[in-house]
């Protein structure tokens, strides 16, 4: 049958909403899960050291741990800490320095997720003890492929407190003084097959006696090797000074640790029907033109606590927690970023979450040196907008 249902029970409506405010804040860059490690200086970003934490258990066997090599029946022939270098050619090999932390009794040298240039300072670096130097070298993976690496002699670690179970298994890698060229290495996150993962390699002989009570008799000798992959690795990055744009606009940058908090107070008075279903909810920001931005991806996530931030501020850590199930991702395209925040608005309208604002921060895959700046609510035309298209009874 046919009838005019224009006064139907389900209506489609749209709204374009303004008055979206944003404030930028800075935290130390969090780059522990990056797939590359950097050492040196690049466009004002100073990667002053690399930190590693070795696994205690060997890759080959649960029975072989770092402390296994303290046993008198084990004779270490050679040991190396190996890190693969990301480069195409090797013209002038660079020499690096490897350190460890024998004076620190607990395994609390660093945290991949939390350590940064503010809480791991020159004081902590100075506490490290020199192990050895390592120089870049090439090696043939097969008849076609050549790879590059640095191998640090590391027998000394097994004569020291490093292998003792009560101590840390952390290593520090730096450039010699005066060298600030940027060097790039493969981190443990690069390849989960572990082919290029930084690791400790130990080549040794194992002495076994037929009669364990009499070591003067004949001896059986096995020549073996074990490897220990790193379980954490981190570039210690010191960001450059902020620019005026960084603090004046709504700014996002991974290397500089720039993040922003967005408030949409009008949502509290929007008074949409309780049973509204959002068809679209697009939050659009227009970027301040920057020809250097080829691609940039940003997360938007609803805050779980009230944030009082009226102007730019620097923090030692990011305490602004977000609702983990309502992330939205947007990418710079045509000089703007559009976030689909339908899930957040739907939950906010259902009163599952409060309207405490959104946190904008860079995706981990973005270039560390790239920052994006968005116009805020005071721009005359390119201010942020929220477009909603919804269906409601």
């Amino acid at each position, binding site marked *: 049958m046919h009838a005019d249902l224009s006064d139907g029970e389900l209506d489609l409506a749209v709204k374009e909403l303004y008055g979206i405010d944003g404030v930028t804040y800075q935290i130390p860059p969090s780059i522990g899960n990056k797939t590359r490690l950097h050492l040196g200086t690049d466009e004002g970003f100073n990667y002053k050291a690399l930190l590693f934490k070795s696994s205690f258990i060997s890759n080959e066997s649960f029975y072989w741990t770092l402390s296994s090599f303290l046993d008198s029946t084990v004779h270490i022939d050679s040991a190396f800490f190996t890190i693969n270098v990301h480069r195409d050619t090797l013209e002038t090999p660079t020499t690096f320095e490897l350190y460890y932390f024998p004076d620190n009794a607990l395994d609390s040298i660093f945290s991949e997720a939390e350590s940064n240039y503010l809480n791991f300072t020159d004081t902590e670096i100075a506490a490290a003890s020199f192990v050895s130097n390592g120089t870049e070298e090439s090696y043939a993976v097969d008849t076609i492929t050549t790879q590059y690496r640095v191998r640090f002699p590391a027998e000394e670690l097994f004569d020291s407190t490093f292998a003792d179970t009560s101590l840390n298994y952390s290593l520090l890698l730096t450039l010699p003084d005066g060298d600030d060229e940027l060097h790039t290495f493969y981190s443990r996150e690069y390849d989960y097959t572990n082919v290029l993962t930084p690791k400790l390699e130990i080549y040794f002989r194992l002495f076994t006696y037929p009669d364990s009570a009499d070591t003067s008799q004949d001896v059986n000798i096995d020549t073996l090797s074990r490897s220990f992959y790193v379980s954490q690795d981190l570039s210690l990055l010191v960001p450059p000074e902020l620019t005026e744009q960084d603090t004046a606009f709504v700014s996002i940058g991974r290397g500089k640790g720039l993040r922003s908090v967005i408030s949409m107070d009008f949502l509290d008075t929007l008074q949409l029907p309780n*049973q509204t279903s959002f068809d679209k909810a697009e939050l659009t920001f227009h970027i301040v033109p920057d020809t250097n931005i080829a691609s940039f991806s940003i997360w938007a996530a609803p805050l779980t606590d009230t944030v009082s931030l009226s102007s730019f501020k620097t923090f030692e850590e990011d305490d602004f927690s977000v609702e983990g199930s309502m992330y939205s991702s947007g990418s710079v395209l045509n000089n703007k970023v559009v976030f689909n925040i339908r899930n957040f608005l*739907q939950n906010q309208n259902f009163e599952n979450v409060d309207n405490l604002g959104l946190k904008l921060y860079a995706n981990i895959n973005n270039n560390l040196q790239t920052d994006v700046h968005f116009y805020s609510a005071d721009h005359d035309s390119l201010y942020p907008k929220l477009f909603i298209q919804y269906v409601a009874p």
Partner: protein
Amino acid sequence: MIHYIPNYLSNMWLRRFIIFSIISFAYGQSIHNAYGLGLISFNHNAADAAMSSRGIIPTLNQHISLSNPVTWNNLKFAYLTGNYTGNEFTSDDGENGLTGISSAQFAVPIGEKYAWGFGVKPLFNQQYLIEDDQAEFYVQDDTLITKRSVDGSGGISIFYTALRFPVSAMENIAIELDILFGSLRKDSKLSIDQSVYHFFQRHLYSGSLYKIHFSSARLNSGKYPLNIYATFGGVLNSLKLKHHSFQPFEDVNLNGYYDGEDNPSPAIIPSIEIDIYDNIFKPTELGIGFDWTLNSGLHMMLEMHNWQDTGKKNQTLYPLLSHYVNQSQQVSLSFAKFSPEIAFKLSQKMQYRGGIYLRTDKMEEKGFQVNEMGISLGFGIKFGVANNQIDFAYRHGIRSGDFIQNENIQLFTVGLQLGDLWFVKRRPK
């Protein structure tokens, strides 16, 4: 083992009958059914339908109407009655139909002056699928194609019981209590380009009505004896509606159900919204019928009936309310040739009925009405020692009005009455 076969066969027949009854409800019906509470049902048995009656005049046998309890004392046996009705509505908009059980009743005379009975019958039924034209929605330099439809099924039924007793030598009264119950399930759909949104709603109805049936034999004498019947009905507890409003959702996987792939996710939605609306349906009715006996077994009857609903129907509950019928008036003239109480020949066992009617339905929207006129025919056959009876009825009508033009209505009803002796002292063997 052989004793189980008839039982098995009857179960199989019953199962098929139930399945057929249920399936047959799956057809749509006239657009009338989509409005407000739906299409009100006035004819519940074949005898009434054959004489275009709304149940006031005696249509089953001489001085007996299945719908009018004040006549039940004239039943010679206790009767179990069932009726099955099929409707067909044809117009330029297409063809619609609805079939289903239209009543089930048990009535028993107690002596010659009293009677009691109970039964179930539909009051309103709704079974519809309505679609609107596509519409364009302009937004952000884009054009969205939207289309609305609404799909509903359900209705309100009556469980009734009635007691008949005399108030004087010539006058009798029956009091009927109607318990209303039922539900409507409705799915309003809105498609936006390729997306489809569903809005499921459920209405649960409850309420009660009363009816007083009156008969007088004061003029039942002379050459053309006349019996007069009247019915008045009103509200005991006006209809209450419990409205369940489910969360509208985008049917992302287009399976018609709300599941985890749809938007918003069922996991995040609040509990169902339930609202209660009172005074939805407040009907009053008044009817009067005249039954002249022209000669032995031949009757001429005139019936007039007015039904009006003054309930408050919320526009948000009933978006198509403007065309809801809130007043219906009918006048009918009918003839019947009833068989004698004791009949041996087949020709004596046959009963013939026919009638014409004029009906006016007034809409919720002031000034709008639909007029209907039609004829009805039917016959019945008595069988068995307990005067069992099977009746058939056919009615044809045409209605036109402010928004319906020349809609043809065809109704076919079949009814079966099975009698037995109740409340009679058996002779000792």
